[in-house]
């Protein structure tokens, strides 16, 4: 199902500092909740997020159970050249999602 909502400006001038906003669907189960029978609901979270700009990593984050569900992360980067942003989320239970966005830099 649609996992990610990415917001990257479609166009920018070379040298502009642009904001990138990302939203990913994920329950971020903390691993601290219990069923009424006392069993722990196992942890199931995204543990890391990374963004590559034309292949080079420009931002990375470690996420924890303290990150709210449907993690929202926004950060900045300098628009250097036209190309592609690749986003990757990795987490427990083999969770792995990617998304991409393009930008025209003039």
């Amino acid at each position, binding site marked *: *199902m*649609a996992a990610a*909502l990415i*917001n990257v400006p479609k166009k920018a001038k070379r040298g502009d500092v642009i904001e990138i*906003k990302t*939203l990913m*669907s994920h*329950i*971020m189960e903390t691993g601290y909740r219990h069923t009424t029978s006392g069993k722990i609901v196992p942890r199931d979270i995204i543990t890391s997020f990374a963004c590559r700009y034309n292949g080079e990593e420009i931002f990375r984050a470690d996420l924890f159970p303290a990150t*709210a*569900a*449907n993690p*929202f992360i*926004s950060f900045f980067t300098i628009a250097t050249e036209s190309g592609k942003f690749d986003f990757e989320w990795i987490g427990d239970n083999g969770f792995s999602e990617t998304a991409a966005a393009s930008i025209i830099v003039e």
Partner: protein
Amino acid sequence: MRFAGTIALASLLALIGALAGIVIRPLIAAEIPSTERRSGYTFMAPDTKAMQDDDTVNPGMLGVLDGETLWKRKAGAASKACADCHDDARVSMKGVAARYPAFDKALARPVNLEQRINLCRARHQEAEPLPYEKHDLLALSAFVAEQSRGMTITPDTAPELEPFVAKGRDFFMHRQGQLNLGCTNCHDDNWDKHLAGSAVTQAIPNGYPIYRLEWQSLGSLQRRLRNCITGMRAQNFDFGAIELVELELYLMTRARGMPVETPAVRP
């Protein structure tokens, strides 16, 4: 004391109405006058408002996007997608959420948006109903309702709906449960005060399905109502119960004139 006055006034008006041979919808003195009605949005902290205002950060939009995918997906024995009959939702679904719940002639009762979606699935797609409060139904109803975003809520005034609205209003007004609380005691008499740390709103459901921070997910109006009824320690209803639809119907009359905010963000 105000309640006794309400009953007296209602009886008086009913009497006048009966004498005049006209059916007057009783003016319940406790209801918030239309000039003072405010969306739940106005009670929120600035950070929460900001979450709703920006589609790029609103977590409810994840559901809307999923709903858009589901809209185009073929389903059921008839192998039809919503789009096959309704085409572009931006056109065909515009205004729908602004006038729901609506009267279904075949069932002779009002149905809410989720039930309408499931009726369509049964009648036209030959598909199983989507379970209440699970991802797919929430996503589809969020997508459909979002097409009415910004539009003014104009509940249907069909005469067939009146007895159901009246039942919904009765439920809202009467005291019940272990706390002997009526919805009106908070939402008409004490809005803008606080219950623990939370602002008491006017019970105007103009943004459903909402992304509720407490739930950390999208959820329907019926989930919120069941939540409230649990909080009141009163007898609850199952999802889809007619009593909940009647209550939704009444609540939407309170929302008359307000803009649709789906997908709203609420604490």
